[in-house]
């Protein structure tokens, strides 16, 4: 019995007629090696103690790593196009949530409203540090 016959006997779907999808299996070890190198760079970046470099090596590389995994391991590039739209839609909802909530979360005052604890903390910090500090301690409350 050939492999395909054996698979068909077990209900193995790869032998079913009309099955036309094909997943291209690339060099996964090479992709993994690239991911590991990117991980090393992202860990090494902060040692330079340059904020812009840290942001790029941390978050820029995170985006690249995620892209490599989604494209090469999850094979989204060979999935039907609507899968990409589906994922993009959820990411857009995430951005919509961020845009809608960020003004309330990130600002201490606005039109006809303010956060008394934040404002007090900010003013206290200004008083203590001569204007150099922010309102970070408000995060404790």
């Amino acid at each position, binding site marked *: 019995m050939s492999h395909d016959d054996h698979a068909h006997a077990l209900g193995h779907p*790869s032998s079913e007629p009309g099955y036309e999808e094909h997943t291209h299996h690339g060099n996964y070890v090479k992709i993994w090696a690239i991911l590991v190198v990117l991980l090393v760079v992202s860990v090494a970046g902060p040692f330079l103690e340059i904020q812009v470099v840290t942001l790029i090596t941390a978050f820029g590389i995170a985006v690249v790593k995620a892209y490599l995994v989604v494209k090469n391991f999850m094979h989204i590039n060979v999935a039907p196009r609507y899968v990409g739209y589906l*994922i993009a839609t959820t990411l857009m909802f995430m951005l919509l949530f961020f845009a809608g909530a960020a003004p309330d979360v990130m600002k201490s005052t606005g039109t006809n409203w303010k956060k008394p604890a934040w404002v007090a903390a900010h003013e206290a910090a200004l008083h203590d540090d001569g204007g150099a500090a922010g309102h970070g301690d408000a995060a*404790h409350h």
Partner: protein
Amino acid sequence: MSASPIATTRTTAGMPTGRLAVWWVIASEIVIFGGLLGSYIMFRLSHDAFAEHAAHTNTWIGAINTLVLLTSSLFAVLGHKAADAGDGPKAAKFLYLTALGGVIFAGIKFGYEWPHEIALGYTISSNTFWSFYYTAAGIHAAHVVAGVIIMLIIAPRAKRNFDLHRVELIGLYWHFVDVVWIFLFPLLYIAK
């Protein structure tokens, strides 16, 4: 030997039903993790104290766990490749290796990292940063544990060449768990 992919031929939208379902799960998970990470980023950007608290997380532990998850993702996709080739025993072997990666990840987190941090007084109720830290990492770790359990259920049948399409499906889920960690790692361990 055919290199055609493994999955049920039943299809509702141009792709196997099981794979479509997993993509839907992933889309739902993006909203869950996206809301959490989006909230974290808002607080992180507006509270300098977050950077001070993040300085107490262990970058090396986070990096080791990242390496573990990346490697387990490699095993997952190699399992998918083996399943596509109809080699159930090989696919099962890679599934077990992937699950081992998940066990190591959870073991480091629950066996060393968290107990160490809690012993130092950094608990989920210490402040907003640690609340985010334990919530985000905890929900992610729960997904890791769930993935390991599912793999341990799938692998024995895959080894006997049954339901090989499930190897690809759990792989898809596992890669997503990996992607979430790829973003959690810089947020919680690097941006200090």
